[in-house]
């Protein structure tokens, strides 16, 4: 058994980063995620591992510090909450275009605009469909527990460097603020320059002699070459779609109906599933863990044998569009959700299931 603790999701983001050998963090306070930077500052990783922790003057500054830091081939990340992520989207698009690996944590709150400080999943479209400009995708991991928050920090960096692309942990005010038992990862040392050179190859700005010159950029004025770059990005996203889909299925074997839910709404939907099963409704739960790549094949397969889907989300109905694309009209797909910082109750979800799918 590893190091067992009772911790907040936000605190675990900080702790897991230190333990997975992260080199740097650049952040700015915003509710409900300020504990990430506060925990990092208290932990003083610069003394323990040499990791840098910097409070920027804004999210715009922190994303661009991250852009600079990522160009050195080091493991760097930032965290924020919805309005702060909106400020970062310019930088995110550039990072994707320059193919630089890094990690963002979005502890979502209700929007749009300044919205509220209560939890939400209304940034699904922003995370999965782009947010910034241009044809790019982020790998989006959606933890549903404090434990997964811990695990996905390391996984996030692994995927970022495997595909040389930015990765987002899409969590929310529930997961960030709640305390749960967590088994922390073992400490990994930070990469040495030699390891960075081996992992990232020529592009990393290491400050070492006799390396070929490289200019990090997302710009290519020759449109034919820019199209080639985009071909390369798309091939990468295709490969991610084929190889990196992660999901959890509960009670789907005998299910007549399947709920699709991610993150904190999956936790609630799991309880709804138990209530519905007690009532004799054969319902299962598909929880996408990666939102991009989305578990398209798994939904296609289920669509061939269930009577309908209910997409449960803490937004006005965003992921339901991807569920519909995967189901492709074979069976009904319905949506239920609360938003603007409100959280659905398990009972509300069961009622929606009964009224929208079974009764209908």
């Amino acid at each position, binding site marked *: 058994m590893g190091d067992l603790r009772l911790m907040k999701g936000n605190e675990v983001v900080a702790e897991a980063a230190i333990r997975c050998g992260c080199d740097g963090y650049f952040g700015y306070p915003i509710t409900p995620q*300020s504990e990430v930077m506060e925990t990092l500052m208290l932990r003083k990783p610069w003394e323990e591992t040499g990791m840098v922790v910097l409070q920027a003057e804004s999210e715009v500054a922190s994303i661009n510090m991250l852009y600079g830091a990522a160009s050195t081939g080091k493991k760097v990340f930032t965290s924020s909450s919805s309005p702060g992520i909106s400020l970062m989207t310019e930088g995110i698009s550039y990072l994707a275009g320059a193919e630089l690996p890094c990690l963002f944590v979005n502890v979502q709150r209700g929007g749009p605009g300044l919205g509220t400080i209560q939890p939400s999943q209304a940034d699904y479209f922003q995370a999965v469909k782009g947010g910034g400009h241009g044809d790019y995708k982020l790998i989006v991991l959606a933890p549903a527990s404090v434990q997964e928050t811990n695990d996905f920090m390391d996984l996030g960096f692994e995927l970022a460097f495997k595909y040389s692309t930015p990765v987002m942990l899409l969590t929310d005010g529930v997961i960030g603020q709640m305390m749960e038992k967590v088994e922390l990862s073992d400490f990994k040392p930070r990469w040495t320059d030699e390891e960075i050179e081996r992992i990232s190859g020529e592009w990393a700005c290491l400050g070492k002699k006799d390396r070929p010159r490289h200019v990090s950029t997302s710009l290519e004025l020759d449109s034919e070459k820019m199209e080639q770059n985009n071909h390369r990005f798309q091939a990468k996203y295709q490969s991610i779609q084929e190889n990196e889909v992660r999901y959890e299925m509960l009670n789907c074997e005998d299910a007549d109906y399947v709920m699709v839910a991610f993150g904190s709404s999956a936790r609630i939907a799991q309880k709804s599933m138990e209530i519905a099963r007690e009532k004799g409704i054969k319902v299962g739960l598909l929880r996408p863990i990666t939102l991009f790549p989305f578990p398209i094949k798994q939904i296609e397969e289920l669509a061939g044998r269930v009577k309908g889907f209910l997409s449960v989300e803490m937004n006005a109905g965003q992921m339901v569009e991807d569920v519909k694309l995967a189901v492709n009209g074979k069976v009904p797909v319905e949506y239920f959700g609360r938003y603007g910082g409100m959280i659905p109750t398990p009972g509300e979800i069961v009622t929606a299931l009964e009224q929208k799918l079974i009764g209908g």
Partner: protein
Amino acid sequence: MAENVTYTLKDFKSSNEVRWCPGCGDHAVMNAIQKAMATLGKKHEDYAVVSGIGCSSRFPYYMSTFGFHTIHGRAAAIASGVKSANPNLSVWQISGDGDALAIGGNHFIHTVRRNIDLNIILFNNRIYGLTKGQYSPTSERGKVTKTSPFGTIEEPFNPGNLVLGARGTFFARSIDSNVKHSQEVCTAAAKHKGTSVVEVLQNCVIFNHGAYNDINDPKTRADRQIFLKHGEKMLFGANNEKGLVWENGDLKAVVVGENGYTIDDVLVHDAKTESMNLHHALIEMALPSLPVAFGVIRDVEAPFYDEEMEKQIAHVQETRKITCMDDLLNSGDTWEVE
């Protein structure tokens, strides 16, 4: 707009519950601003209050005027938009040190440089209060906060220096506890044409309590604060027995009548001079060797953007060669094919 309208402070209060902490300095600053507005002779409906994000930025909810609670750091740009689109309004921007100087630093200096006729009231509590206690761009070096548990390692901004650096035309400083003085400087700010910046030193009772105790302790503050008035001697102390003189290229605090200093040596405050040298020295004054300067430090006449913009539009309309669609089609890179 010199109509005969009489208001009281209450006319500017809204029915919304004020949600600042009990004892927060913001309450007093709001009273001062409302009192100033009540006496400016402008119609109630001509005021617009724009804020960014932060504790002080809740201000528009508590005002009975038109209000705009906007985006973190962007209040200066949004207020500029309001003023340019409707120059008849008296536009007040309420920002904190985080809002105006961290994320909003860029908009802040450019607004001041552009000299658009706004009144920017900068609530400086030297901390991020709304996010519960992280250091801000005005937190003093070494400040222990939630994000600097071992002390900050950064130099703070002095807001007045930024105003001068952007060639600002108006800067004043006040403190939350002195409502009468805050009202006076806010009134002066409103009367100034161009961007007026009023820095109000404000106590955050929860996350930075006592930040200004050294300046504002009632037992010692007569010796630690100087209230500057244009055209008057720079005197301070319980009985105005102290004064500021210029010596060896800097300001110096002296006791009048001691060490050979007479009242004639004491400087006279000139807020209207274009030169920034003395204004800069006054803004920079800090304990323990010098008192902290309050009052209107700089109030200089200069062309201001909204008026310049109107003038330019009128001039171009008068002198334009293109007056109809045909003129437009036949202008520029057009020629007849023969």
